[in-house]
């Protein structure tokens, strides 16, 4: 287990390096001169040259990358063009909002997804199963921004139960979390169901029944723990999807999160801000995956070290 964890952590190093290279190249290879953008349309050639010098844009590309990496490692992601603030600071202040949104949505997804999936599997061949799966299919097919708009229309504008936009108070949280969490709930429900159905047909479930274990415990003790193993992976991946999905949800509900920050930065061609926030999201994504892998291994002790 220890060796596995160490090895898995070591394996993320090349991935992280790869990500930084990609993010760096992406920003440097897109058409348009960064110095030109910063200086504005009317700037003189000399001003642009000065900016280039200051940002190190005249250095060879590998040198620039090296500096970028060195700064990033020290927590310095450059200065935002729009606001003139430190990108690191801006990204993290916005990031907490997104993380909150994603976290609540995650809880909703897992809670509803697991319950629906288990009920569906246990009541296999019944109407309950069919209905649950139809609802799940709907949940899966609805784009979160559309669902967000519909929720806003019904519950905020017509029924006036919840506020239309913003983030912070409990009432403000409800609608965005439902909008963002529904698809995940549907995916987890479907995964849980198929995993449960597979586990229920296993020999050891028959053994449990033959021991006289009550059906409730057969399901919740013997089947669920096994069935959850593949579901954990899906939950982990779902977290990444939530982070990206947050971009649209935040835009719809005017939430000042990282997603909206990225969108605004792209619109303003604020390349240090885009570069910095994309990097942060990518790193979070990798860390979540790492945690999923380790917990997967913890749940399923049979996985070979290879």
């Amino acid at each position, binding site marked *: 287990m220890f*060796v596995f964890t*160490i*090895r898995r952590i*070591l394996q993320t190093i090349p991935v992280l390096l790869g990500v930084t290279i990609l993010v760096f190249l992406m920003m440097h290879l897109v058409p348009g001169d960064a110095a030109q953008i910063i200086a504005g349309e009317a700037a003189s050639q000399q001003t642009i040259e000065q900016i280039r010098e200051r940002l190190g844009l005249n250095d060879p590309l590998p040198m620039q990358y090296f500096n970028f990496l060195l700064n990033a490692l020290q927590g310095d992601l450059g200065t935002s063009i729009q606001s003139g603030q430190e990108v690191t600071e801006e990204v993290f202040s916005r990031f907490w909002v997104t993380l909150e949104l994603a976290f609540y949505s995650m809880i909703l997804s897992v809670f509803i997804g697991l319950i629906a999936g288990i009920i569906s599997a246990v009541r296999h061949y019944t109407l309950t199963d069919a209905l649950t799966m139809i609802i799940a299919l709907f949940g899966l097919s609805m784009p979160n921004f559309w669902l967000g708009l519909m929720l806003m229309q019904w519950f905020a504008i017509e029924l006036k139960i919840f506020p239309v936009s913003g983030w912070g108070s409990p009432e403000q949280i409800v609608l965005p979390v439902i909008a963002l969490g529904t698809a995940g709930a549907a995916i987890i429900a479907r995964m849980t169901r198929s995993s449960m159905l597979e586990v229920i047909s296993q020999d050891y479930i028959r053994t449990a029944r033959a021991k006289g274990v009550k059906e409730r415990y057969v399901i919740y003790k013997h089947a669920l723990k096994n069935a959850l193993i593949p579901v954990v992976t899906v939950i982990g991946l779902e977290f990444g999807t939530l982070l990206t999905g947050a971009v649209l949800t935040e835009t719809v509900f005017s939430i000042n999160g990282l997603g909206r920050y990225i969108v605004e930065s792209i619109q303003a061609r604020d390349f240090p801000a885009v570069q910095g926030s994309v990097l942060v999201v990518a790193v979070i994504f990798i860390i979540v995956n790492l945690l999923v892998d380790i917990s997967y291994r913890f749940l399923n002790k049979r996985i070979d*070290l*290879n």
Partner: protein
Amino acid sequence: MTTKLLEINNLKQYFPIKGGIFGRTVNHVKAVDDVSFYVNEGETLSIVGESGCGKSTTGRAVLRLDDPTSGEITFQGDDLLALNKQQMRRKRKDLQIIFQDPYASINPRQTVRQILEEAMSIQKVLPKAERMDKIMELLDTVGLGSHQLDRFPHEFSGGQRQRIGIARALAVDPKFIVCDESVSALDVSIQAQVLNLLKQLQRDLNLTYLFIAHDLGVVRHISDRVAVMYLGKIVEIGEKKEIFDNPKHPYTKSLLSAIPVPDPSNQQERIHLKGDVPSPIDPPTGCRFHTRCPFATEKCKNEVPELRVTKDMTGTHQAACHHIEEIESGAKQPNY
């Protein structure tokens, strides 16, 4: 006059085990460890043993389905391990294999006709025009009807699928067939049908079999000679009659005595073996059977016994045990 069709010398097959933080090779599974034997033309040599003894690995190595770690495999005078991929592919025309579950080794989307046609076209056995006749002949040989020609594998029962597997092996007119647990998955009544078929084909086509099985009843029925393997080594080899009626190695004896006899009034005395087969990763030193052998001594722990002949053995019978004479004379008693 018998000629050796296949000869194997000092065959070793080690599979690496990766481990540690950097995934280095930390150890080996010694699946087959220094095995030598030969198969005469037209005979059936069976390899028997329990799971993990290396019998299937040996069969696969002969066909180079896995490349052996070291050793020598000579088929009709050619060194198979010296052949390159293309030469080996051509050689496979003469060397075929029938698996335990043919379903796992045939394309489920191909009909019987396509399966057989493909086998022939890969080896370019016959001009295209004559292949159809050959296919019909093959079906007849293995006891399938011409109306089954365009059916898919899933439409057949287990026994019939095994017949398809046999037909495919025969499609290229091989000289030598490895039967890897070919009848193990079949019900008794169907197993008998397939065994009789294999025997009849051997007579008619002068085939040579390397028959790999764990069922000693089946082995006694089909073999001319038998090799008994334990943890990657041959512990006893010889003519069928010798192995079954005059076994010398304690493992062979206990294996034979462990099989339930289908006759309630003729139950034999049993030689009890302690525990499980040890892991082939770190096999016991000396005689690999010493950890379970009721006759084991200090010598067995330290010295690897070689296959050897003792005085009341006949034919090509050999066994690898230090204490055959003492056990036979009763000087050594089992120590449970």
